[in-house]
């Protein structure tokens, strides 16, 4: 089975984002990681490779720094890697999707995985955009996947229910938490990943149709309140949760 996984490098969830004076994100102290949802995508691809044989290729778009996210995926066990060189990761998901689709078309992939969304810009558009551009089915927010012959059955989470969908391969799958337990990159995997050459390619990106005007910090959260520290405080706590916080 020939599988591609499109991955994105994102800031660590614990990063405290700082803005520059020009109201752009200051990247200098950011700890970048592999987008957590993409870990589920990589894991699922590896599991299918273990079952059916074949190859897993990871593809990412972005500047040099993105290579470290690629290495993380290789260290988990992916076989090959492509980086589409770009000065920045575009704001407009459509631009990224265009470049990825061009690359994916070269590969004759049976399955294309990606995380259901990236935790930085949260667009959650990539599975659908890729499906549309490649003219193949796309299913996202997938929590369970079964592949048999040239058919797959995917289970999606929807509000209050699970939806079960069938389609034929090739297809695009957007991975949701719960799809699997991503493996840890072993030290052997990390050393092996170092020896794999990342295929860096140039690409023409289409023009961004979206532009970020500025970033702003979210309004400061008001500090927590300690109502009391014994059972006596429960009624007051309930009242506040109901009347002030309006969560129950």
């Amino acid at each position: 089975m020939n599988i591609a996984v499109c991955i994105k490098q994102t800031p660590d969830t614990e990063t405290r984002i700082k803005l520059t004076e020009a109201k752009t994100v200051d990247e200098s102290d950011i700890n970048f990681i592999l987008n957590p949802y993409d870990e589920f995508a990589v894991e699922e691809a590896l599991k299918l490779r273990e079952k059916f044989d074949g190859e897993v290729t990871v593809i990412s778009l972005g500047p040099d720094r993105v290579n470290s996210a690629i290495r993380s995926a290789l260290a988990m066990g992916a076989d090959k890697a492509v980086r589409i060189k770009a000065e920045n990761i575009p704001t407009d998901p459509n631009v990224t999707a265009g470049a990825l689709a061009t690359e994916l078309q070269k590969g004759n992939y049976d399955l294309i995985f990606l995380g259901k969304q990236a935790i930085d810009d949260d667009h959650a558009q990539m599975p659908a955009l890729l499906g549309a551009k490649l003219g193949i089915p796309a299913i996202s927010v997938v929590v369970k996947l079964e592949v048999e012959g040239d058919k797959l059955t995917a289970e999606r989470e929807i509000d209050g229910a699970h939806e079960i969908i069938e389609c034929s391969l090739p297809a695009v799958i957007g991975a949701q938490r719960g799809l699997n337990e991503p493996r840890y990159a072993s030290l052997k995997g990390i050393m092996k990943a170092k020896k794999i050459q990342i295929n860096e390619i140039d690409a023409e990106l289409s023009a961004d149709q979206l532009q970020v005007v500025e970033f702003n910090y979210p309004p400061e959260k008001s500090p927590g309140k300690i109502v009391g520290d014994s059972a006596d405080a429960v009624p007051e706590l309930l009242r506040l949760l109901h009347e002030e916080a309006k969560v129950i």
Partner: protein
Amino acid sequence: MSDKTKPSFSKALFSGVLLDELVFPYPEMEAEEAEDLKMMQDTFKKFAEDNIDSEKIDENSKIPDEVLNSLKELGFMGLSVPEEYGGFGLSATAYTKMFELFGGVDPSLAITLGAHQSIGYKALVLYGNEAQKKKYLPKLSSGEMLAAYCLTEPGAGSDAAGIQTRAIRDDKNGVYILNGSKIWITNGGIADFFTVFAKEEIIDKNGEKKDKISAFLVTRDMGGVTSGKEENKLGLKGSSTTEVFFEDVKVPIENLLGERGKGFKIAMNVLNNGRLGLAGGSIGALKVLLKEALGHISQRKQFKKTLSEFEMIKEKVAQITIDLFATESMIYLTSGLVDSGEVDYSLESAMCKVRATEISWIGLNECLQMVGGLGFMKEYPYQRYLRDGRINMIFEGTNEILRMFTALAGIQERGQVLRKIGTALKEPIKGYGVLTDYAAEWIKGRISTERIQDVHKSLSTAKVQFETWAKNLHFSAERALMHNGKKIIYREMIQKRLADAATDLYAMIAVISRVDSLITKKGEEKAANEINMCTIFCDQAWRRVRRNLLMVDSNNDKGMSKLSDFIVEEKKYPFEA
């Protein structure tokens, strides 16, 4: 391992020579290794978050087998095994950083991993022959075998040269017969591979029989190796600590490690190496507990203010931070020296161990203090980190012994000049450390230099403080030697002051070098916090140095000794109010 050819920065310091080329610029990890390290750290962090429950480990006095097995599979048992034997051959710097992480996540686990690879199989890596390495290292690296380091005995702790475990060579059968018992052996209950130090009778060059220590690679399957019950300890409860008994164990002669009679040197050099990992683990623990305490003090209100607004709390936070920064600077300067190869770092690693374990102990205690009564409660981690951290000042060389080593090895350089004293000085050190002569030779060729290279102007005060007190350390050491002659070996209170002064000076130069390199890289503005820390630390440090050095000449040592002798004689506190 060849004897290192370049001298130690700190030994030269005692002699009034500032080998600034050894400590500037501040060492930096190569980009590729830094990337590997980050991935390894990420793997461990993720694994730990999902699988390691330190409270349970402490409660059950055991690290679950599944945790150890997963760590084996992931490769964490082979960090210091060279790649050609199936390991990952980390540099000293990367290795120490890994232990910083382990020590922060769970000290019991850190010590289990450390006893295995910092000391358990380290002697094999350093001194093993090809056949020995081929036979054991792959299994040790994969964790198929766990290792332990067996030096301490009931009658021989600090005075490790006094061990009684005996090896009798039987050439006819090609074996050594090993008998004896070791006490408080980390991993004693779970290891299959033991680096054992034992005495054997050797005929020296004059044809006389002499007992000398040799090192042996012993495996449990040789038969006759048994472990005692698990000790019930104050801390590090998840780690295995037992007696290990050797009863007529037949150790093949090919399992002799290194040369016959050179075991003590092997034992000490392994510890020199291991001390950096322990130092790293100690500051790792403090970093984690500080984070925990910060969460509390920035929420908790008293007197209508958050605790973090009070000056006495600020002082604690700042002091812990400065001590961490300075100690970290020493540790990674030293690991950089180790990685550069061919430098004598025995003094520096001893100083790092002493300083790191002590600032960690004090800092952990202050973290507990900052959170008040809550810190005393079992359901919070403060008490556990404190219990776990206590042993660090005792094992891998007690801090008293390491201070003696630092001072005597330092002044021994000067003693060389006064021939006889030099020889006399070597005697006691033999009991707990290994000395080398070459540095004295090397230093002879250098004129004493009173200045170090230029640093950024924002650090110029710190630089002058360092230079001034470095010179004074030299003078004080010289005077102590002149006044006391050979008796300096018994003047431990003076040794302690010299050692502490040298440690502060080493910390100062480490901080200055680190911040200077940082300014070069990032500019003054972006290094503002670091410059502030350097300024404060060096100001605090030179005052300590001054006090220690003044007290080399003017002190109450006689009165203190006399009083102690009296109290020991009385066997109790005899005064009544």
